[in-house]
């Protein structure tokens, strides 16, 4: 069984490097004072908009051998269903991993949209089912369902999508969804059901994932914690008679030498504003179990970037540079590939990688790191080319 490796689309814009917040690509950075005024800097005065840059990242990813990309959805991002349908015709192998919260779409509508996107792309749509972080953010979306209710809703949602997929007639009476004699029309009913990556760390999440997920998706955590997490997930799903796989979403900084890789981190860390560092040490919000696990992995004082090196080639300060998870992999091309293979050994079957800037780094990681990843093969240890 081979490892699937995805890239990521920065739907919230991104800086040109890890070293500083500017120059910034896209118009998402508040107070963007980009001097170029070209489309890359946002604003669209020259007829280009941020999607034009996203399209280039998608092309870079598919040319470089990635499966496709995760297209994140948050309050301050562009949206994956729109991006996927707009890029359907101009990509050929790029698989669109769409994160969405089941509570936001009517499941029968979602099934139709998915089947149509499969037809529009030749079967390249897949889900990343997310179930929300709760708190004010959830109410911003207009969703007042509590944590466990949201996972019940997720399970019901996927029950209905699967139920109507082959044409039905399918009826269902759930707490959140009810349908009668539903089913997709031909030829939408001929399409392949999307793979499902499933996010969520709580017990309610695992129960929901056990029923429907193909891949259980997690952020990077200390390796021992991850080993235990994967074991627990696979054990729980085995009990239900389903073989579930595990995937890791992780940022990487890979360079020809380890020194150069840490140099990127050092320069970025030196440019972090003091208030950002303070906020990093005391963040709060929401009922997400995953975010709480991330907070638990952090030191209490930080004098240099080295204080955030938590295990070999793992740096825990990535969310000083951008929102999201704290840990990422830093090292030479060989070291990064080895860490990925280590994760495979402790239970990972797929990856969603990312680095900044996402276009150039798709080429770099695809050309220099991916060929060194052995996965479950017996290939001899390889050396980097570049």
């Amino acid at each position, binding site marked *: 069984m081979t490892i699937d490796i995805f890239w990521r689309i920065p739907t919230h814009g991104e800086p040109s490097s890890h070293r500083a917040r500017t120059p910034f690509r896209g118009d998402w950075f508040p107070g963007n004072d980009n001097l170029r005024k070209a489309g890359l800097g946002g604003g669209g005065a020259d007829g280009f908009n941020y999607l034009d840059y996203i399209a280039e990242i998608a092309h870079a990813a598919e040319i470089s051998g990635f499966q496709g990309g995760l297209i994140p959805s948050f309050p301050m991002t562009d949206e994956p269903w729109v991006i996927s349908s707009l890029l359907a015709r101009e990509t050929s192998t790029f698989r669109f991993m769409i994160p969405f919260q089941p509570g936001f779409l009517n499941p029968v509508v979602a099934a139709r949209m998915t089947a149509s996107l499969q037809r529009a792309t030749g079967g390249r749509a897949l889900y990343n089912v997310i179930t929300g972080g709760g708190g004010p953010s959830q109410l911003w979306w*207009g969703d007042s369902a509590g944590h466990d209710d949201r996972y019940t809703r997720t399970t019901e949602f996927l029950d209905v999508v699967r139920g109507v997929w082959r044409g039905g007639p399918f009826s269902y009476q759930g707490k959140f969804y009810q349908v009668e004699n539903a089913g997709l029309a031909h030829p939408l009913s001929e399409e392949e059901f999307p793979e499902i990556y499933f996010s969520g760390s709580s017990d309610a999440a695992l129960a929901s994932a056990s029923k429907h997920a193909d891949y259980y998706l997690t952020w990077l955590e200390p390796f021992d914690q991850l080993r235990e997490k994967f074991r627990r997930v696979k054990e729980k799903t085995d009990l239900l008679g389903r073989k579930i796989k595990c995937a890791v979403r992780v940022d990487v900084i890979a360079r020809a030498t380890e020194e150069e890789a840490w140099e990127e981190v050092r320069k970025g860390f030196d440019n972090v504003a003091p208030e950002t560092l303070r906020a990093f040490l005391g963040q709060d919000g929401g009922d997400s179990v995953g975010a709480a696990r991330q907070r638990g992995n952090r030191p209490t004082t930080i004098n240099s970037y080295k204080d955030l090196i938590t295990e070999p080639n793992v740096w825990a300060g990535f969310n000083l540079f951008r929102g999201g998870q704290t840990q990422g992999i830093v090292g030479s091309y060989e070291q990064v590939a080895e860490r990925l293979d280590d994760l495979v050994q402790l239970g990972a079957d797929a990856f969603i990688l990312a680095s900044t800037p996402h276009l150039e780094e798709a080429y770099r990681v695809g050309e220099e790191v991916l060929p060194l990843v052995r996965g479950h093969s017996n290939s001899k240890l390889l050396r980097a080319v570049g």
Partner: protein
Amino acid sequence: MSTEFIWQLPTAGDGRYAEATRLRRGERSGQQRPPFTDGVTDPRGNRFNYFDYAHQVARAADISGFDGLRIRHDFEGDDSWIIAGYLARGTRHVRLLTEFEASWGSSVYAAKNAVSFQRAANGRFAWQLVQGGDEASRRQHGDNLPQGEVLARIDEFITVARGVQTSVPFSFKGRYFEVLDGGFRGPLAGNPLPPVYLSGEGAEALALSARQADVHVFDAAPLELIRAGVAALHQAGSNGRQVAAGLRIDVLARETQEEAERDALRYREQTGAGTALPALDADRYWDGYATARSGARGALVGSYEQVIDALAAYAEAGVSSFLLGAEPALEEAYRVGEYVLPALRARLAKAEQQAA
């Protein structure tokens, strides 16, 4: 106010004459034309499907000078939002008017997707929110709302979608949707709202359009009924809010009336709808000439001159948005774009100048 011409894209299939009821151009699946004989090479395999054809229809409307493309909501076909997205980067000018129901999902999520669409497609997204079918039909699509509440839900859907796009913070607690301290910021704010097209008959529908719609679309009907409808629409309005009157009507236009009637009859015969030609008035309106994939209540059947006259008469009666359709959608977009629109637009411009 300038008149807009929008071309209809059917979403469950299209073809020449009666083939439109059973063919999906571009596809090899389902009932279809016989493939080539063994004597002729066919390179297509399964390479194409209806999306490839839809791309061509969209380009036809764009190149031929239409102002918009209306993407039909049809449960037998592909999803209208996905098609709209698929067509966006292949078109430059046409507004992508996307028909769907308020049972779609969260209004905030719809608004957020709409904003992404506007950002990526230079503001060319538009909404047509329709009431959908009867209760049984809607239950088949996960929508259990009692029939009497459908318009109220559309009302709230628009209120919330507009609210989050135009105000921060935005809070709302209604019967169908709620938001707390929502509202779009940064690059999500300040984008053109998708224009809202609504439809429906009766006082409640007209009142809703008067409050919420940019365009109220009337179903095809004889001229005098449309004139009365436009008057009713303006009467339903309050606070001087401008709502344009739209008309959804098919056009079967040919160089001569005889050719038009011949093709209309051929379609009727092939679909078993009859062999007789009704007596049409000078306005050439054929009530009930419906094609399975079009959703229009009737069509104008006549020569180019006659169709131009009839459309100009509707414009004079107050219609400023025409949602036209014909089969097959590809060739007829070029035909209407070449033989009807230029002369019609010149006629309307002249009438406007004279009125000024």
